[in-house]
C-alpha cells in the first residue's frame, strides 16, 4: 500500500532522520505535527473515541522504537500510516473480544465519543452525535471520509493509502456522505445546525 508521493513530504525527512538518530526533541515536534492525522486514521478504523488515546500513544511508542527499521526515510508517511492502521485494527479486535467476554458492558455508542478536554454542553453533544454517526458508518466508507475531512487528503492520496482506484474512493465518499446525511437528519442534528 503506497501513500502520497514521497516528494510531497520530503520536507519532513530531516526530522525523521533526526528521530532515527535518537533526537527526542525532534520526536516531540514530530508527534505534535502529525498526531492529528494519526488520530484520524485510528478513528477511521475504530469508529469510536473509546480507545483512541491509548492506540495513538501505542502508535507513537512503536514509531520511536522501530524507526530504525525504516530503510527509506522518504517513505515514513506510508510506514506511519500502516503502523496506525494496524494498531487500530488490533485495538478493534481487542474491543470485540472484550465485548464478547463482557456482553453487558456497553463500550460503544454516542456517549463519550468526544474525549475529555473537548467542548462542553450543546456543542459537545452535537459533536458526540456527529462522531457517533461517523463511527456508525461502515468502515469502508468511514476510512476515506475521515481521511478527507480530518486529514484533508486528496482523492489520489486516499486512493494510494487504501490501495483503491480514485473512482472507488470518490464513490465511497459519496455514499459515506449520503449515509451520514440520513443519519444526522434522523437525529435532527442536521436540522439544528441549519436552524442555528
Amino acid at each position, binding site marked *: 500500500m503506497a501513500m502520497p508521493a514521497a516528494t510531497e513530504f520530503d520536507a519532513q525527512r530531516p526530522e525523521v532522520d533526526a528521530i532515527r538518530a535518537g533526537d*527526542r526533541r525532534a*520526536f*516531540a515536534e514530530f*508527534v*505534535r505535527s502529525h*498526531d*492529528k*492525522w494519526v*488520530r*484520524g486514521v485510528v*478513528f477511521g478504523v475504530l469508529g469510536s*473515541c473509546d480507545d*483512541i*488515546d491509548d492506540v*495513538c*500513544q501505542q502508535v*507513537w*511508542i512503536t*514509531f*520511536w*522504537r522501530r524507526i530504525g527499521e525504516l530503510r527509506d526515510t522518504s517513505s515514513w508517511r506510508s510506514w506511519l500510516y500502516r503502523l496506525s492502521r494496524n494498531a487500530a485494527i488490533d485495538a478493534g479486535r481487542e474491543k470485540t473480544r472484550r465485548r464478547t467476554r463482557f456482553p453487558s458492558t456497553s463500550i460503544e455508542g454516542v456517549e463519550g465519543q*468526544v*474525549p*475529555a*478536554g*473537548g*467542548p462542553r454542553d450543546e456543542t459537545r453533544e*452535537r*459533536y458526540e452525535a*456527529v*462522531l457517533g454517526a*461517523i463511527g456508525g458508518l461502515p468502515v469502508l466508507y468511514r476510512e476515506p*471520509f*475521515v481521511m*478527507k*475531512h*480530518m486529514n484533508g487528503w*486528496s*482523492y489520489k492520496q486516499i486512493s494510494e493509502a487504501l490501495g483503491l482506484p480514485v473512482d472507488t474512493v*470518490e464513490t465511497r*465518499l*459519496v455514499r459515506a*456522505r*449520503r449515509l*451520514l*446525511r440520513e443519519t*444526522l*437528519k434522523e437525529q435532527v*442534528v*442536521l436540522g439544528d*445546525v*441549519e436552524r442555528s
Partner: protein
Amino acid sequence: MSDVEENIERLISRSLDGMLDDRQQLELDRELIRNPEARRMMEEYRGADALAAAALADLGRAGVDVDRIVAKATRRKAEVPRRHRSRRGWLLVPGAIAAAVLAMVVPKPLFDGGDDLHAPTFSVDAESSTHRQLGRPPLPVPMGSNAAPMRTVGDRSMLRRRAGTEWIGVVGDDGNVYWIEVQRTRTIRIAGHNRRMGGSFLER
C-alpha cells in the same frame, strides 16, 4: 434514488471536496438554479460536511500528551535490552524443569556408581585380575590390548572430562595406560538400556 439525483449527489460531493472541473461546476450550477430539490440537497450535504469537519477537527485537537508519550517511548526503548535479558531469564525456569525431568526419566548410561561422578563406577580386582562392576557384568577388554586384565591406578581418578567426551584410563598388566574415549552423546544417554541388559557401550 434516480440517476439524475445520483448525478447531482456526486457533483455536490465533488464540489464539497473542491474537485469539480469547469464543465462539472457549470452543470451543478445549472441544476441548483432550476431544481429546488438539488438546492435542498446541497444545503444538507454542506451542513453535514461542516458538522463532520468540526467534530473531527475537535477530535484531532484533543491530541495526546506529547511529553508523556516521548517520556514513555524513550523509556521503553532504553528498557529493551533489560527486557530481553528478563525474557531469557524466564526461559531458564522451564529449561531447568526440563533438565530435571530428563535427569529423572532418562537412565544414566554408565557412570552411575555413586555420588562421586569423577570416579569410575567399575572396579577392578587387582588381586584376582578379574573385572568386577558392582552388580554388573565384567568389564570388557579394551580394543588394542592383548586381552590382559586391567586394574585401576590406585585410588586416583583416571577419569578426564571434556565437554561431550570423557576418557577412562585403565592400566593393563603390561603397565600401559589405556584410554577409553567415551562420547557422551544422546545415544549414549539412552544406553541405560544396555546397562539393564547387562551390556556396556564399551563393547562398541
